[in-house]
């Protein structure tokens, strides 16, 4: 590389020599030539995935540090560290070493808190990143595989969080494990044995901490790392999606090159995330395990909460009615099995399959590199909001005791309210969201046909009031005008021309209905000619305002609302009326 540049300084010379050395063995320059100037589109929401990636790196770094001091052992020791309230008390080595990290190792508490904060940020960023991908339709062809990898990563992120939460062996984390044992036991047929295998015997046994430890520091992070690699390779190969805008099409990528812009921006952003995690951990206490004391299965603290991403499962456990049936001498604990195994199972399976379900229902097999605006896919947006509301109510259920004590309400009435809401609120959220999306589509159509409402009211010489509309700027025009019109699949015929029965009739009827459900209500985008005419008209109207200002200042009335008197069927154009008045005077 630098060998072509004789003026290069010694560092660059050495760098060039290294590049040549590596290239002769791996052919890396071909890759660099192609990729150093690779273009990535820019949008704030594309940083969500970056936050997830960077916080995961912070978790790995801080986690490695913690393994140097943490002892994953359930052997009982007497604590003799510098945290006085627990001095002389029996506790597991796991808990004692966690206290040691928190109180006696310099910087230990900082690293522990960074690990916890970064883990929370990781899961949160994963979730919000997933919302972004869902609501913009970025999961559509050709990116369905990457969506599935993402769903797997989300599941693993929850597993990583939970296994880590249980390691310090304080009263709070032990209670979480106790609940896990109850959940395992609720699984029909194999549950009882499964619980004994997981805990190495009857609960709590002496093995669970070291088993969770190997899952937490090796198995789960190893899988996450492997899948993140796959995730990124796919993003790299398929090129990032982009939002519609001037110059952006389905066939190009508009943005900044990797070198130098994203090297600096993304690299810098890694340090920003890392730095904020460290600052947060210096300033804000998290998971102070010392106040709960060591775990013992016959004690519990009231009002305690799991980490936020597990809260919804706890809420599901709380809200579930107490159903249990005994069939032929065997017990099925619906009250535990449904909320903790069946519901998450259905949710995550549905999530993973969603791209295929939507493509099947809408018949949309096209490649999509331009993102959807959420309003343009009202049913998808509605489904997403419905899922968030469902999740939110379960999460609220997970804190029903806190709600009760904070607002002085009866826990029974809260639980019943939430049970009803869990059934009623999500469909309601769906309907409302869909209506809002369609209204936004209508407004978009108005903007394309008439320009945007400037809020300025004009009194015309003959006394009529109109609101001045102005043409959209280039960016808005490109964004709003990009709306794809996805047609509803045609209704199939029962028989063909020759009277032969159509074997796919029923299936295609379902698809016809579903695709109508998805896109049947969409407000059609006006044609290019109509848009141009509309914008041109708005431009003219905007232009008429200026001379009128000068002509008769007091006729201009400013109003924030307006648009009332403006109707398309006006007998004469404004310009004609002005000209008329002028000729009369």
């Amino acid at each position: 590389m630098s060998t072509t540049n004789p003026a290069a300084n010694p560092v660059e010379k050495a760098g060039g020599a290294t590049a040549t050395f590596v290239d002769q063995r791996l052919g890396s320059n071909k890759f660099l030539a192609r990729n150093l100037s690779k273009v990535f589109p820019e949008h704030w929401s594309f940083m969500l995935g970056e936050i997830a990636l960077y916080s995961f790196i912070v978790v790995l770094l801080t986690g490695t540090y913690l393994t140097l001091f943490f002892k994953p052992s359930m052997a009982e020791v007497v604590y003799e560290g510098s945290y006085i309230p627990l001095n002389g008390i029996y506790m597991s080595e796991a808990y004692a070493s966690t206290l040691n990290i928190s109180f006696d190792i310099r910087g230990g508490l900082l690293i522990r808190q960074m690990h916890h904060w970064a883990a929370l940020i990781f899961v949160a960023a994963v979730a919000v990143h997933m919302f972004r991908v869902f609501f913009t339709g970025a999961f559509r062809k050709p990116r369905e595989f990457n969506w599935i990898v993402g769903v797997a990563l989300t599941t693993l992120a929850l597993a990583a969080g939970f296994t880590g939460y249980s390691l310090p062996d304080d009263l709070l984390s032990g209670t979480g494990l106790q609940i896990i044992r109850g959940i395992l036991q609720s699984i029909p047929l194999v549950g009882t044995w499964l619980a004994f295998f997981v805990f190495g015997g009857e609960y709590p046994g002496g093995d669970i901490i070291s088993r969770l430890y190997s899952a937490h520091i090796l198995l789960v992070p190893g899988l996450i790392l492997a899948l993140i690699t796959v995730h990124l390779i796919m993003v790299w190969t398929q090129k990032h999606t982009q939002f519609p805008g001037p110059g952006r099409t389905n066939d190009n990528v508009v943005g900044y090159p990797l070198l130098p812009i994203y090297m600096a921006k993304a690299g810098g952003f890694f340090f920003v995330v890392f730095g904020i995690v460290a600052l947060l951990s210096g300033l804000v206490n998290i998971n102070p395990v010392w106040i709960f004391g060591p775990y013992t299965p016959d004690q519990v603290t009231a009002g305690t909460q799991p980490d936020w991403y597990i809260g919804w499962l706890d809420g599901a456990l709380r809200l579930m009615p107490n159903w249990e049936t005994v069939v032929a001498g065997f017990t099925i604990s619906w009250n535990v099995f449904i909320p903790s195994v069946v519901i998450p199972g259905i949710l995550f399976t549905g999530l993973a399959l969603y791209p295929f379900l939507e493509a099947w229902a809408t018949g949309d097999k096209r490649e999509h590199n331009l993102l959807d605006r959420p309003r343009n896919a009202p049913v998808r947006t509605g489904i997403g909001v419905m899922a968030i509301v469902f999740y939110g109510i379960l999460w609220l259920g997970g804190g029903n005791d806190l709600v009760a004590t904070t607002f002085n309400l009866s826990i029974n009435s809260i639980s019943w309210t939430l049970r009803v809401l869990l059934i009623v609120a999500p469909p309601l959220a769906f309907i409302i969201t869909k209506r809002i999306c369609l209204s936004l589509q209508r407004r978009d159509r108005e903007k394309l046909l008439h320009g945007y409402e400037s809020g300025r009211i004009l009194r015309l010489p003959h006394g009529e009031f109109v609101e001045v509309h102005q043409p959209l700027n280039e960016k808005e025009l490109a964004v709003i005008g990009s709306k794809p019109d996805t047609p509803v699949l045609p209704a199939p015929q029962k028989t063909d021309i020759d009277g032969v029965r159509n074997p796919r009739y029923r299936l295609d009827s379902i698809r016809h209905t579903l695709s109508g459900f998805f896109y049947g209500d969409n407000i059609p985008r006006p044609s290019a000619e109509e848009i141009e005419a509309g914008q041109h008209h708005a431009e003219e109207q905007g232009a008429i305002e200026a001379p009128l200002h000068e002509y008769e200042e007091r006729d201009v009335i400013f109003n924030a609302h307006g648009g009332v008197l403006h109707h398309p069927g006006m007998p004469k154009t404004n310009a004609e009326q002005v000209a008329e008045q002028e000729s009369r005077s």
Partner: protein
Amino acid sequence: MSKDLESKLPANPEHGEPKPGYLPVADIPHKPRVTDTDPKAARRAERQVASMFLLSMLLVVLFVVAYVTIDVSTVVYVPVLGEVGASNLVLGLTFGGAIFFIGAGAIQWSKKLMPDVEVVQQRHDMESDKGSTKEAAANYERGKEESGFARYPIIRRTLLGALALFPIPLVVMLRDLWQTPPGENPVEILSTTSWRDGERIVPDTGHSTGENVKGIRPEEIPVGGLVSALPMSIKELKEDPVANMRDRGKSAIILVRMDPDEIRAQQGEGWDYQGILAYSKICTHVGCPIALYEHRTHHLLCPCHQSTFDLADEGNVVFGPAARRMPQLPIRVDEEGFLVARSDFQEPVGPSFWERG
């Protein structure tokens, strides 16, 4: 038919050159920044970036100084934060700041001084061209032919069989995740506890088991009171932590005393002792220990998922997700006047399981 449906869709409206009815592709807008036009502003930005990198270095030095000089147990009062560990605070601020300013500097550099003109690159179809697909298929056919995979069905079937069986040892070896003691099975283990006739009830004094405690006398429990208790035979924590924890997770009970007239029902005739009732402490929902007792209503509330049990009415569920009543332990007093169990629980305690029935 499905193919027909798809052919009726527009080819790809937002693809490439504008389709009829779509707007032409607009130019990418660009506005020059102050740093592009004003050399003074550019120099100012240069200084800003360099100062951030400099600040980062300074903070690293401060971090090392703080690490060496601040005692790890020093507590300081900081407004808003309250009493905090000085070491954690200063280490966090210096370390975090040092990292943060590298990032902030790099981003400022890219935003102010590096070119901000958006460029265009074309995408390429993911789908391989026809030639490659044909070649891949031909390669596959050749491989199939040369290996004789299709021609030797016995080899094929035995290979598939071997591949299907080889993971079995990997699964079988998981069997000893629980080294089952001879003659034991989970159902029996879950169905019994340490309580038996004459087993003395001792108060549960927290994580360190009460040593030298002889038991509980009935008069020590006031009406309306609640005592958490364990069997006296529980192993010492330091000697056998696994056995100790197991008993705490299974044999733990609560003793409550109420006016005998208020007891509406019990799980067995005369299982109380003068209004003292013994119930399992382990919730029948998912196994949290319960000790939230409302002595006027005799309701016992689980802090985990709010299952509520009526102890005056044989421990029945009155609210919440638990499906089963709290098991009751029959009790009496022994010759020395201490409370003891009359037998084990008559039903398994804790969360339900498949074979429980």
